[in-house]
């Protein structure tokens, strides 16, 4: 491509917080603009263009009428980046899929329900090929910069596939389990630099599951900590509903000998989350 690659930002159903994170980058954003030309970005500028090489798309697909627009973006872009949990996983509003659509519309819009369209909430990958997913709710700004550098260099981006524990331990944060809370860190994809556990929160799983999560272990461990299956599912459903494999949730009891004190004598936890 001649000249600077042209970048366009788009959004579907989302809070636009991930784009806001990019806008808030400060100096690195200015430096990035040395290398790219932003041609469309509703949140940041009034100009628009249909000509671009890199599309950065935030948000999930919730209406069938959104699909043609997404497909047009896909056709135009040589690289399509899905930005944030909504675009990569469907986002927290995937929970709407559990309800009846017309009930849901009535619940939200009352008498005017028929004026609105709603459908199954799904990630971009359900409709088009995504080249690079940037997970997170919101995204990690540093990861966005890193992804852009990879795109500019023509280098494939290796999406992090370790658990959040990896980054949590590298940063030496106190283990959430040692604070007598549960945490989705052991099965959640890292790349966030363990930002939630650094602030005393638990991991909510916003980057989705790692490629090969041991859900059997997760369920067993959480049950030992006093949670019921419904609680466990509701923890996962915030972000991992779309991707949650139905298999692998059965429990196989390992021999007691391989469990340490910590496993065999579960602490007493409150039974709801």
């Amino acid at each position: 491509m001649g000249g600077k690659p042209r970048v366009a930002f788009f959004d579907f159903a989302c809070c636009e917080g991930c784009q806001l994170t990019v806008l808030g980058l400060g100096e690195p954003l200015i430096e990035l603009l040395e290398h790219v030309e932003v041609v469309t970005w509703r949140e940041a500028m009034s100009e628009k263009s249909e000509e671009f090489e890199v599309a950065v798309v935030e948000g999930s697909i919730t209406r069938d009428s959104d699909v043609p627009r997404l497909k047009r973006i896909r056709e135009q872009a040589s690289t399509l980046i899905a930005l944030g949990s909504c675009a990569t996983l469907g986002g927290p509003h995937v929970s709407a899929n559990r309800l009846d659509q017309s009930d849901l519309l009535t619940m939200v819009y009352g008498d005017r329900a028929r004026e609105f369209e709603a459908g199954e909430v799904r990630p971009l990958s359900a409709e088009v090929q995504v080249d690079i997913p940037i997970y997170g709710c919101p995204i990690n700004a540093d990861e966005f910069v890193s992804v852009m550098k990879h795109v500019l260099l023509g280098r494939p981006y290796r999406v992090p596939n370790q658990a959040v524990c990896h980054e949590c331990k590298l940063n030496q944060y106190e283990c959430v389990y040692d604070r007598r809370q549960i945490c989705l860190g052991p099965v959640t994809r890292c790349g966030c630099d363990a930002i939630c556990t650094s602030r005393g929160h638990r991991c909510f799983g916003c980057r989705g599951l790692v490629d090969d999560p041991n859900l059997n272990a997760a369920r067993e461990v959480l049950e030992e900590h006093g949670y019921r299956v419904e609680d466990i599912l509701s923890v996962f459903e915030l972000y991992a509903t779309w991707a949650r494999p139905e298999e692998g949730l059965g429990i196989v009891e390992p021999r007691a000998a391989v469990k340490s004190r910590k496993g065999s004598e579960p602490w007493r936890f409150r039974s709801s989350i």
Partner: protein
Amino acid sequence: MTARRRAMLGEADVWALLERAGKRGPLMAPVKRGRNSFAFEWVEDPGAVALRYVRTVLPPKRAMFPEREAFLRFRRPPGAGAEAVVSEEPYVLFGVHPCDLAAINQLDWAMGRRHEVVDPNYVARRGAATIVGMECLPDEYCFCPSVGTCDTREGADLFLTPVGSGYLAEVLTGKGRELLDGRVSGREASSEEVGEAEAWSETKRRMTSCQVDAEMGELADLLDSRYESQVWEETALRCYSCGTCTIVCPTCFCYDVEDRLDLTLMSGTREREYDSCQYPDFALVAGPHNFREERSDRVRHRWFRKFVRLLREYGKPFCVGCGRCTQSCTAGIGLTSVLNAVIAEARESAA
């Protein structure tokens, strides 16, 4: 045993020593992070140092083998170039427990001498260190007596043992003497005080509840005979492959390498970061073929690496009994629990 100078320091003397060490250069020491969580950190305020702690999240190896480290600066072509990034700035590493000292000695071999190859970054940082060891008491996860590390002094330049209201300081090297001399007003320890310090070893042994049910000399053969044990599969049912056990391990030294570009896109750094044999793609090669694809393969690898392979090569297990892996495993997988289950199987099948 070589004659060492033993001095009695009051607690105020130790604070003074920390103060001086902090003024002289960088100081890494344990600080309190959470209710029961400590971390070795570069401290600005020596007053924040925790003199008593059981274990830290990451071991003190991070002083000489940081969890993330840029070791090369490069320029992309045209006019490509590359130069080493190595730090030799002297620093004090304070409060290292005997098990972690033993681990540093093992890393001195693995990074410094193994295969007759010297890792320049590790060795430079190691050489720049003045290490102050500190005696400790075990909790339910410690098993240093089993692996023979609880009386380690080697690797420390100065070693402190709490005695009465103060500390008995053993001066072990010239660096240790230099750190102490003229900075704090120690007095010569009495024979009672020396006796009290020496009694720590016995106290630690008595207080340690966790253990390995085999002598280190027989361990490799015992495990080797149970390569096909079901214990690996059973452990894998509980294992997240989250890598925590290896990331917090004071003797693990595997790393991954990645190029990171500056925003100029013309120059950057090559960085290494702790890697883990528990991650699914650790043994992946082109093809693709994964030599340890199953979680149980990776679980077994960890015990075999520490208690069979490196034990045979180095002569001691690559485990110092610090208890970090067991304490920090959210799935509750115990290093000695698994080890002992395999040992029991091996003895049973041999009987």
